[in-house]
Every structure is written in structure tokens, then in C-alpha cells.
């Protein structure tokens, strides 16, 4: 019996949809998805909201620093 875990279909669907938003780097999308996947069954949305806010703030800060 194989132990292979099927591919992450949700991530695959997200990457497929991201083709329509090329301005968003794939790392940002992957990181946002990782936060949501880790907290998908959390009753409270407080933690994922805080982590997403931080993720985008850091991304914007890095982008500004690069400019």
C-alpha cells in the first residue's frame, strides 16, 4: 500500500488563479496559503488575520526598501 499523500489541490487551485494577478509574487501567495491552511479549522480568525497583516506589511516594507 502506498503512503503517497495526494497533491495539495487547494494550493494548486490557488496557483492557477494567481496567474491572473502576476503582480503578486508566488512566495506571498504561498505564505498566505500556509497561514490559512495551518489555521483553517480555528474557530477564531484572530491569529490568521494578525499573521496575514504582518505578512503583507513585511512585504510592502521590503518592496519599499528595494525601491
Amino acid at each position, binding site marked *: 500500500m502506498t503512503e503517497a499523500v495526494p497533491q495539495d489541490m487547494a494550493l494548486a487551485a490557488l496557483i492557477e488563479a494567481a496567474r491572473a*494577478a502576476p503582480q503578486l509574487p508566488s512566495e506571498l501567495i504561498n505564505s*498566505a496559503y500556509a497561514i490559512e491552511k495551518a*489555521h*483553517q479549522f480555528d474557530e477564531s*480568525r484572530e491569529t490568521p488575520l494578525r499573521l496575514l497583516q504582518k505578512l*503583507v506589511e513585511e512585504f510592502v516594507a521590503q518592496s519599499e526598501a528595494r525601491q
Partner: protein
Amino acid sequence: MKLIRLTLTNFMPYKGETILDFPQDPDRNTLIVLGDNMRGKTSLLNGIRWAFYQKAQGRHLRAIPLHLMPNRDAVAEGDWTMEARIEFEAGGVYYDLRREAKKRATVSRPDRPEDYQVFAFMKKDGAAVAASDIEAEINRFAPEQVSRFFLFDGELLQEYEELLVEGSEQGKKIKDAIEQALGVPALINGRDDLQALWKRAQKEQGKEASLVAGLEAVAESFSKWSARRDMFEADIVTLKAQQVAVREERRSLEDSIAESESVYAHKIELDAKRERLKQIFTGIESKESFKRSLAADAWRDLVRPRLLKKRDQLQARLAGASKLASQQAKLQYQIEHLQEHLGDSVCPTCGQRVENVDRAAQQRQLDDLLGERAALAWCDVNSEDIAARHRALEKVLSTSVRSRVRDADSDLSNLEVESARVESRIDELEEELFEQNPDAVIRMRQRLQAVTRDEAKGQIEIEDREKKLAEADREIQSLTQRMNARAGQNSTRAAVMSKIFGALHGVFDASIDNLRTNLRAIVEKNATDAFLRMSTQKSYRGLSINANYGLTILGPDGECVPLRSAGAEQVVALSLIDGLSRANRAPGPVVMDTPFGRLDTKHRHNILSYLPDSARQFILFVHDGELGESAGMESLAHRIGGKYEIQEVSSNQSRLRRMS
């Protein structure tokens, strides 16, 4: 994930410690637990469920209250501690998960769920896991939402059949559960979380815009629409919460009404029996009164033998009188005939002359007849008088008082027996209705009507607010674009954040439909593979999935097969569960409780041949009617890695015995 051992202590019918070892050999990965109904098969499934999720389900998939779960005999002995422990392996790590319920120290006799405290303990490769991390750890390999694909019973299988009913409430609930298990929540939550952050950033952007010269009016309009959007969102949250409460009340009322149907029926029967009892008492009174009235005629029975004799005599005389009258009439006719002949010398018939010799003979005959008539005359009787006396006697004798009393007694006995029966049934019904309130059922029905109306009204209000919210969203997007266009290259931090959150939200939003489409395709393929292995009808082409994940059988020419048997429904449901399970998770255990109720032997054989290959471990809790030596066990013989039997100890206790 692979299950290693389940240990139950005072858990439901299992008093003391009960151990169930799961098979570890991949070639013999099937475990059979045989047990009669009501012996504790479902309790084993609940043992696993409770250890993982602190939940146990009874009939109709309802949660079993905690205080009803500890073994009754243990409780009677003052032991209120219950435990379920599951040892398993996942991702190469050994887990030991223990959940314990204990009576609170301040409670003497617990009779409510809150009278217990529950503690969870987990060890991961021997190292303790913090209590706050246990649920997250379980969610990594077996989130509760996925449990419906590996812990299920016949009732849950039936629930899947609801998926075929387009628009059904239950179908929507299961669809949501399926999507939760398939990873859709990560995207849905992501979309909603990003939308919340996007709105926050937009508000910030609006505030900043109000300080920019030339953007004041746009910022003011933005602020106004933003406030309206907040108001509509708050309304929707409130209305949806109200809808949840109303829906919950409706379901609860429907359940209560369904449960109290018997109370209602008993109440109707009780009223009818009471009415019948009244009629019986009236009947008894009437019969007794009738019997009393018969006493006045009792003398008739005393003289009855004599009256009977007299009647017989009268009857004989009446018969004699009748015979006499007949003889007299006959004689009279003959006399008159002869007299007529003698007065005429020509025969009236042939017209010939009558000889004197003949006339003399006729005269002699006439004389004889006249003599006979004279002889009969002296015994003439008054037949009218006899007949009248006979009629009077018949009337008196028509029914004896005795037989009428006997009939009345018989009727009375029947009524008394019936009254005893009815009274006994009334006692039973009153006992059953004791502490029940049949009038409450009527009130519940009325309340249900009102709640159903409220639910429909609430839905209309939600739709209205959603339309207004969509309008506010459109206005805000338009205003945001105007603010962005004005800012150009000099976008503020808030504007940049708003753009990124907006773009991320758009990607997550679009991905949900992508995922659903892909999931349906893969579930349809997996379920079709499973169905073709399990179905006995080899001409079927496969299964077709609908938007709810409901499956329809495709016939030989690809046409939908609209009607299917209960057995086929079960095979389709199993195919769906297998298809869903394999769509997004590694092979794991499948634990099934009494799943084969509606399957014929061939389907059972096919399923039992397939599932041990599909699952990492295949655990079956069955009764021998479902899987006896002659009912499918041979299909599994080479895959069985363990076999147990549930034995009855008492009405409150069962124990597991390992058979192999």
C-alpha cells in the same frame, strides 16, 4: 495514520478496562468485531470518536450527553471516572492520546454534562504535548471534519444520499462538511480574512485621502459608503445569527414533534377510549334496566309448559278445522254439481239425453254426499276463534323471559369484559402520558408554523441586506479606484496595502471555484473507480457528480439511472466516501459500524473485497447477520488480522473477547 490500540475504561457498556488491538500487518489489515444489536458496537466507534474529538453520537447522529456515558454499573458503585485512550501512528510518529472524564469534586451525584470535567493528555513519541496544542496536533492528521470519511455508520451513509436532492438543507450541510474535509476552508477563510483586511486598509486609505487636497469629497463619500457597508454587514451578521437560532428552534421543534407523535397518538386514543368507556357504562345500565323490566314478565316462564301444551292443542285443532273446511267445501261443490245434473235431462257437456238409470245412480250419489255433509256438520268448529287464541298464545310464548334474560346477561358479560379491557388500556395510556403534556404537542405545532414563517421572513431580510451590501461594495471600489488614480505614483502606504489585500483577495476568491471544479472531477473519478469495483451491475458505466457532490449512476449508454435500490444507494454512498477520502488525504484507517444492513450478499462480497485494499486498516463492527460465516466472511478471510466478539455480561455491561 494507523490505529494501534483502543483502551476504554468505564466507557458506556464497557465496565473496567477494555482493550481493542488494531491489526498492524498490511496484508491482514482487517479487524472484525462481532456483536449483537444493543451490545456496544457503536460504543466502540464512539470510544475512538471521543478519544479524538471528545464527542459521541447516538441515533440520528445526535451528541450523547457526557453524564450518560460512564458505565452505569460503575456509577452505581460510585466510580464516575471514564476514559478513552487511543494509540496510533501518523507520519512516522507514535501518538498516545488519552481523554478522561471525572466527576467534579463539588458534585455528589452528577446528572448533567457540566457535572463532569474532561482532561486530555497526549504524548508524541513519548514526549508530553501541551494541552493547548493537542487539538492542533490532531488537526494535522485527522481533523474532526475529515472524520466522517473514516469513522462512520449506516446512518451516516444514508445521510450522503441526501446529496442527490438538489437544494435540500441537509444536502447543503453535507456539501459544506465535504468541502471542509477537502481543504476548501483554507481558501474560503483566506478569502474572508483577506477581505476583512482589505476593508481595514481601504478605511485607512479613506482617512488618508481626506487629508489630501482635492480628494476631500471622494473621501467623504467613501467614509459615508464605508459606514453604510459596516452597517449592512452588522445587520447581516445579526440576521444570520437570528436565522441560526430560528432554524435551530425549528429543527428542535420538528424533532420534538416527531418524538412526541406517539404522545399525540396516545392522547387521541385515550380520549377515544374514555368516550367508549362512557358508552359501555351506558350500555351496562341499559341492559340492567332491561333485565329488571323482564322480572315483571317472569310469571310467563312459570306457566310456559302449560301454555306450550295449550298452543300445540290449538295448533292441532286449527289444522283439523282447516282440513274439515276443505272437506266441506269439496262436498258442497260435488252436491251442487249433482243437483244441477239431476234437474236437467240433457247432459250440459255433450248435449245427449241422460238415461233414467244414470239419473237414479246420481241421485244415490247425491244422497250419500248429503249424508256425509250432515255427518260433518255436527263437528263444525269456530276456526276463527281457534286462530285468534293461537295467535295470542304465540305472542306470549314468542320469546321466553329466560332466554331474553340470558341474552341480556351475555351482552352484559361482553360489555363488562370490554370495559375491563378499555379501563386497562386507559391505565396504560395514562401511565404513558404521565409527566407528558399532550397539549404541549399542539402548542409545539403552532409554534413550528410561526417559526417557519419567521425563518422565511429572515431569509428575505438577509437577501435584501446582501443586495445593499453589494451596492455599497461597488461604490467603495469605484471610490477607491478614484483615490488610487489621483494618487498615481505617490500612493500612500495604506493605498499600497489596500491594493495588495485586494489582489490577494481576488486570487483566493477565484481559486475557490477552481478547487471545487477540480475536486468534483477527481472525486467523480475516484468514486467511479470504487463503484465499478463494488457494484454487481457490470453494465453500469460509472458515476456522475453534481454540484453538491451527489452521485448519479450512469447506465450502459451514459444515461442517468434515476431509480436505484436501497442497496445500490449504499454502494454509491460508500463509493462517494471512498472517492472523497482518497481525493485529499493519505490512506488511513476506515472504521465502519453496522454498514451492511441493506446490502445483498454479492454487493457485500464486492465491498469486502475492495475496502481492505483501499484503506490502510479496515475495521468493521458488525452483527453476525451482516457478516457471519455464511454472510461474506469468506471474502475477507485472507485479510483478517484480528477478530473480537462482544459478549453480554448484563443489561448494563458488555465485554470484548478476542477470538483470533
